[in-house]
């Protein structure tokens, strides 16, 4: 048994996992229409390869990746492409994102595929390529394309794969249920990922508030000596990649660096499970497990949902929400989740939970009051930052000050806001500062671009003038020579 190191800070929010932890995974009845946003991953949006009216089979490619950091999309069910157009994104802004609208036919007709080779007979590059071609992205919420992570990690010489089953966000139980019900598949996915990484060891980290999952996973990996299951003390954010690496290895990820700099690579259990499905059955990432929970939901459940199903469909299946009780609707967990603009938004690859919280759960009864400089946010910050100082500078729009205090190291875990006795929305200040800084960078890039455009225009005018002058000179010369010829003729 290896020794755990722990990480600094963190908080203990009430788990509330009992609401849905004992509900086995159920399949959501297929909705008649699916809304599949082209951007469900970090990086560039995918490019559609289907047209309106086209019939597609389940698992057929409908949008290909665009650029190095991107991921393709596949039809979550068989049916007809109704349209390609803007649809409200599952995002606090409520702005539209380009999406493929698919009318399902209920046949669930799979695309025909060739028999698959044994994944361990393939080269590591080929395994990573197949993971990428299946559209697999990090399913813990970061949405980073998994194949990019795999190939970069192999180049960086990663020695340990960490399978993240910590699931430290309150309410969310989708990973817990996945580990309890499909442990063999996760272990097989882990072995496939180890082959893709050419790494000798894998650690499966699970928080100790999930004893059943720990027991089942331990039983499942008994045959494979390379894989070990570890029980972590429950403390938010134990499942954050950097904190997990620190807990397991004692190594801190350098500021501005990547987790793989420490020699460890973290993948969510959902991602590993999807890799198993892609490599063993040729099934791309077209569905995922979502926890629907919260005090305002009639029957909290864990659902296997086709990507693109509306949050409204999920909530209806769970008995609907009492709208007078629902103070906040979130995608993700209560600590880091995104507030949703409404229930007519689709489930995407990174959606682990849909929460409808009552006012008491959301803590909306407390208005913000001034900072009393108690320093609790500093105590709980897992990144060792000074949230009170950073928020003060963000409030006064001192952007250099915020940056110098390490804004880029903040991962928006929300521990500071949870601990704040004055109920100051600290992460919102940091999101605001990040947005402002990004806007400034965009403006700087734009003005440089505009300057170049102006210079090009100037150069074009000069070329045109020159060309005109040359043409005039040529005409003149031609006229003159003609005149000479005429004179000669006269003679």
């Amino acid at each position, binding site marked *: 048994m290896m020794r755990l190191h722990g990480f600094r800070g963190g908080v203990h929010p009430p788990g509330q996992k009992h609401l849905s932890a004992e509900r086995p995974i159920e399949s959501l009845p297929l909705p008649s229409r699916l809304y599949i946003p082209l951007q469900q991953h970090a990086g560039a949006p995918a490019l559609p390869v289907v047209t309106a009216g086209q019939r597609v089979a389940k698992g057929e490619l409908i949008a290909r990746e665009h650029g190095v950091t991107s991921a393709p999309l596949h039809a979550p069910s068989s049916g007809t492409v109704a349209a390609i157009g803007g649809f409200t994104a599952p995002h606090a802004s409520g702005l539209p994102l380009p999406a493929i609208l698919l009318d399902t036919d209920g046949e669930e007709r799979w695309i025909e595929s060739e028999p698959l080779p044994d994944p361990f007979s393939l080269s590591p590059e080929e395994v990573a390529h197949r993971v990428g071609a299946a559209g697999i992205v990090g399913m813990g919420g970061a949405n980073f394309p998994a194949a990019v992570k795999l190939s970069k990690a192999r180049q960086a010489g990663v020695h340990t794969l960490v399978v993240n089953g910590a699931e430290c966000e309150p309410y969310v139980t989708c990973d817990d249920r996945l580990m309890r019900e499909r442990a063999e598949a996760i272990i097989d996915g882990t072995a496939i990922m180890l082959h893709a990484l050419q790494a000798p060891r894998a650690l499966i980290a699970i928080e100790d508030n999930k004893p059943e999952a720990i027991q089942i996973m331990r039983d499942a990996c008994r045959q494979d000596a390379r894989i070990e299951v570890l029980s972590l003390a429950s403390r938010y954010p134990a499942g954050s990649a950097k904190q997990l690496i620190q807990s397991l290895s004692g190594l801190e990820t350098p500021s501005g660096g990547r987790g793989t700099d420490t020699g460890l690579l973290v993948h969510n259990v959902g991602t590993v499970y999807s890799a198993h499905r892609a490599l063993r059955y040729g099934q791309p990432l077209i569905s995922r497990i979502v926890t629907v929970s919260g005090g305002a939901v009639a029957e909290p459940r864990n659902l296997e949902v086709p990507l693109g199903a509306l949050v409204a469909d999920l909530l209806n299946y769970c008995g609907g929400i009492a709208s007078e009780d629902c103070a906040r609707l979130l995608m993700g967990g209560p600590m880091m989740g995104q507030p949703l603009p409404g229930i007519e938004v689709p489930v995407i690859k990174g959606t682990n939970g849909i929460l409808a919280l009552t006012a008491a759960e959301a803590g909306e009864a407390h208005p913000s009051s001034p900072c009393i400089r108690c320093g609790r946010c500093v105590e709980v910050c897992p990144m060792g930052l000074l949230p009170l100082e950073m928020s003060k500078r963000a409030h006064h729009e001192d952007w250099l000050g915020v940056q110098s205090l390490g804004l880029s190291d903040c991962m928006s875990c929300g521990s500071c806001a949870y601990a704040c006795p004055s109920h*100051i929305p600290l992460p919102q200040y940091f999101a605001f500062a990040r947005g402002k800084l990004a806007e400034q960078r965009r403006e700087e890039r*734009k003005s440089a671009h505009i300057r170049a455009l102006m210079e090009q225009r100037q150069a074009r005018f000069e070329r045109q003038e020159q060309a005109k002058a040359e043409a005039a000179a040529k005409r003149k010369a031609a006229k003159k020579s003609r005149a000479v010829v005429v004179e000669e003729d006269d003679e």
Partner: protein
Amino acid sequence: MIAAITTLTSLGLLLGMLLSLAARFFQVPDNALREELMELLPGVNCGQCGYPGCGGAADALIAGTASPALCPPGGRALAQSLASKLGRTLEGAGDGPPLLAEIDESRCIGCAHCGKRCPTDAIVGASKQIHFVFQEACMGCGLCIEVCPTECLQLRPQTPTFATWYWPKPVLQGV
């Protein structure tokens, strides 16, 4: 008479030469600060600041008669860099989002005047076809508006997209 002509001609030549030599050797270099400011300013000479071109704006900035937030196309980012260069403070000026040109497609007749006038080639369109403004290249100088015969061009704040939206500043009493 010949003597007079020769005297005046030689005087003219001599003084002219002296003047040109003086211009070359006693030349006062352009103000270095002015050049730096010109480097920061957009340089399209749109005249929205009320000064004759970016050069005039730079002079007014040096003289202290203009605010660092004088340039609408430059926006907040330019105002801030001008203020820090001049060692002055910004008093809440230049706060609004940058305004960019937009074409009302129902009224565009495709006269192609705006495209020719645009200093950054941000407007495209064939003649007698509806024109379009690339927001990525538009700096909101407003020169196109003056030449549009149907008044279909307008300066509007840019609508946020999924990629550019960010959380607004929290509204609190004090932090």
